[in-house]
């Protein structure tokens, strides 16, 4: 029987463009041309995915009926769109950022490959394909982090990311092998069926597997206490790549957790729900509290990402379709809010403005557009309406309240309380940046000029943040479909 590969077409487009870039570089030695070609590739893939979502018809899953490996459904297509959107503005912002670097073709090629890997993770319905996609994305990101190999901080960040990333993959893989040993299948939905049939007896190997999977994937998402690497890596990586890691890779980690826990282990959710809840509260609190003390803007944004991951993990603890809908929605809005903030940092770093928050003093007069954009994005991150972050937090936090009305789940109420207190706390360090930009006088009043491509990347994020905030209906609708598709297995 001939295999229908059409589900892989979007990934193939990305890979073909990634492979073509080095060849193009041989002809046209311009980072702008390379970025342009990459953008075309991303755009075509986005159009493909969007077509699937709008038409509601998806290609057949790859693999046999009983042993599916990859399935392109609304969940996969939606996350692919998120990853592609992140890749789009990262490439846009990089067009000028890397113009003086060597190996530009490899840079853009790796961004496309990392994105392709993430897309495979979103499609995977089998632990093996899941892991394969994860590794493609991870290895590309390691190389991207250390892209400026002569930059000490970058090299250190790359090495650190590589060691921790490799270790966490190994831990996760061990967890996967234990799961396979217990259930005899690597199909994620199949694992759940077997576990459901096993009854409620507590297996020590199963608990170990749960622990290893949470630890392994927890590293990718930077859950506390597995978060130590994130700020160092974000600080050392090239600025657009920090955006890719925060807005792209991290979301892939969320997909991993969703797939393995909410599909593969949902039958035994009573065993890990409370643990996920504790991790969620711990992650948001530690992330936000440490962010308050940061003086480097990239570290501050990194710790704020840790905090935001804590909000998203609420969906794991609550484990209802409505909560996952909220979490997916928050992942989408966060991709634009946090990504946009990193793009602004990248644009300002490009014109050699330092990364210390104090360097942003008086920015409102020097770069009015970037300052107002940063303000909007930070307000959105803090969850101030009518921006997108408010609506997504609204859905996510309310899901915890909703679930807490069921007996035995009253503790989930405290998830919402913790999240709301954290939101208030986060406002403090976001507003501090705004205060520096608008209230304080800078040492100079010279206007800052940034390349239009970077301005465009920031503008995309800001517009998305406003539009989703004011008119969230269609996005919520797709998120609901995606959450239902996930739970349908």
């Amino acid at each position, binding site marked *: 029987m001939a295999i229908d590969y059409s589900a892989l077409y979007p990934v193939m487009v990305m890979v073909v463009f990634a492979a073509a870039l080095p060849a193009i570089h041989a002809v046209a030695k311009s980072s702008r041309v390379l970025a342009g070609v990459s953008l075309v590739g991303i755009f075509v893939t986005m159009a493909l995915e969007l077509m699937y979502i709008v038409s509601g018809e998806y290609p057949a899953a790859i693999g046999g009926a009983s042993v599916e490996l990859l399935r392109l459904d609304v969940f996969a297509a939606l996350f692919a769109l998120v990853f592609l959107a992140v890749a789009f503005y990262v490439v846009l912002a990089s067009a000028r950022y890397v113009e003086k670097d060597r190996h530009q073709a490899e840079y853009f090629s790796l961004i496309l490959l990392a994105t392709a890997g993430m897309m495979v993770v979103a499609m995977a319905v089998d632990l093996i394909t899941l892991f394969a996609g994860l590794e493609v994305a991870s290895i590309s990101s390691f190389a991207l982090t250390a892209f400026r190999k002569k930059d000490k901080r970058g090299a250190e960040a790359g090495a650190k990311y590589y060691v921790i990333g490799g270790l966490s993959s190994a831990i996760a893989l061990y967890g996967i092998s234990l799961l396979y040993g217990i259930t005899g299948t690597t199909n994620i939905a199949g694992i759940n069926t077997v576990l459901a049939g096993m009854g409620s007896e507590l297996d020590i190997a199963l608990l170990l597997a749960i622990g290893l999977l949470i630890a392994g994937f927890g590293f990718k998402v930077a859950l506390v206490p597995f978060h130590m690497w994130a700020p160092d890596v974000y600080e050392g990586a090239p600025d657009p790549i920090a955006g890719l890691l925060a807005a792209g890779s991290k979301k892939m980690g969320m997909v991993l957790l969703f797939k393995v826990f909410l599909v593969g282990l949902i039958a035994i959710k009573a065993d890990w729900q409370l643990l996920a809840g504790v991790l969620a509260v711990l992650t948001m609190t530690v992330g936000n509290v440490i962010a308050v003390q940061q003086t480097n803007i990239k570290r501050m944004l990194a710790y704020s990402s840790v905090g935001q991951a804590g909000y998203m993990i609420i969906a794991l603890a609550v484990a209802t379709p409505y909560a996952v809908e909220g979490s997916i929605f928050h992942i989408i809005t966060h991709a634009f809010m946090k990504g946009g903030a990193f793009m602004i940092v990248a644009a300002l770093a490009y014109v050699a403005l330092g990364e210390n928050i104090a360097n942003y003093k008086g920015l409102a007069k020097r770069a009015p557009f970037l300052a107002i954009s940063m303000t909007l994005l930070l307000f959105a991150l803090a969850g*101030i309406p009518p921006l997108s972050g408010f609506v997504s937090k609204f859905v996510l936090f309310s899901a915890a309240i909703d679930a807490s009305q069921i007996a035995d789940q009253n503790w989930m109420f405290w998830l919402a309380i913790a999240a709301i207190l954290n939101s208030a706390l986060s406002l403090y360090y976001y507003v501090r940046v705004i205060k520096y930009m608008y209230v304080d006088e800078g040492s100079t009043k010279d206007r800052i000029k940034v390349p239009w491509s970077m301005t465009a990347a920031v503008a995309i994020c800001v517009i998305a943040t406003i539009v989703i905030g004011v008119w969230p209906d269609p996005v919520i609708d797709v998120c609901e479909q995606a959450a239902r598709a996930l739970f349908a297995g």
Partner: protein
Amino acid sequence: MLENVPILSLLLIVPFVGAMTTLLLGTSPKASKYLALVFSGITLVLSVLLLFNFSLSSTEAFQFRENYVWIQQLGISYNLAVDGISLPMVFLSALLVFLSILFSWDVEERTRTYMGLMLILEVGVLGVFMALDYFIFYVFWEVVLIPMYFLIAIWGGPSRAYASIKFFIYTHIASLVMLLGIFALYFTASPLLGSPSFGMEAIASVAGSFGHDLALIVFSALLFGFIVKMPMVPFHTWLPDAHVQAPTAGSVLLAGLLLKMGSYGVIRVCITTFNDLSHEATIMVALAVIGVVSIIYGAFACLAQTDLKKMVAYSSISHMGIVLLGIATMTELGLAAAVFQMFSHGLITAVLFMTCGMFQHKAGTREIPLLGGLAPKMPIVATIMMIGFMASLGLPGLVGFIAEFSVFTATYNIFDLWVLIPVMSVAITAAYYIWAMQRTIFGDLTTKIDTKHIHDSYWFETVPLAVLIGLIALFGIFPSLLMDIILPSVAPLAAVI
């Protein structure tokens, strides 16, 4: 005349478009000021049209309704309407923003942003007063914070950074507690309604069947969100800081409108949704105690202030306490008087803060011990100050008297002679105002500051104040103009079912 005009939406769109136009086209301070004045002027005209087209004989609780589904899945609607409680607030908002913009005619620093923020603030405040859906209510509620934060942080006094961030975070935390209350309302009411809904009326229609304990918790969470905004003692500490540091127009809007959002929320949300609960004696006494403590505490704190503006700020706490006391009676007269007091305090406090601003401007200081005998130097300012103080301490014939007198009457009807405690505050109020006047405008001319260059008010200061004083007298002499609008809307709340 207005049947087919979406006038409530226009009340939001006009200032919003005005804000954007000012931010984009306000290339010179002059252009910004005129643009802002024109757009806030149109808004004011719209609100006056609304006032005159409001039907007193209508059987509908709400008028001018606009209701469209916004986020279907969550049951969120763009639902706007006004009744006799919100209408005075809508008019007050449009009026105070317009006059504040005029009063800020001498702002030369970043005028475009300043004017744009004032108009955004107007959108938020009007939205709060017109929203009948919890989601958009909360959105507008939070939108208000941002322009006010910037108004204090950029154009404020020496410790503006501290005051603005304290204001922002303090009130934001209160909003979040309120949000928890809204979530609880939503998830408890939705199964009872059969479909998810954030509609205020829909939720209120089933709130009677919430369990008593749950109702009490939700009521308290919502109430907390509102009384921090009002603000009631002991959650008032953000207010003196914010007021002292804010620019004059910021203070006018903060005291005139933002505090009203709190008391409006208590009426529109707490006692409307949980009407049975609100009629319970314990709740009424609790509200009355909070109100009376604020009345007395605010009044005594005023006596101790040396900064004229801080004194006025504390007097706001005292006067907002009267609003809560009126609400606590849960009678038709008390509730109507509470709304009336909100309106009257909005007018009076605007006069007071503008006066403080002029002192700062002309004498260079607001410290009472440094001032003295300034009446001959600036007779108009002194006259206005005197009228403002008299109105605020409840001189008969002016608007404040009607409100306070009605609240105290209603309090006597319900709480008997306990009314003597808040009534005592009138004496303290009179004391601090008259004492402050004595020390600032009467007596011998001060020698502690340079008084050579002190001059009287400018036209753009006199005109807004004259308008305000005119209205203070008008509604003081003809309170029924407003009471007739308010009474039908509060009557259902007061009725025991």
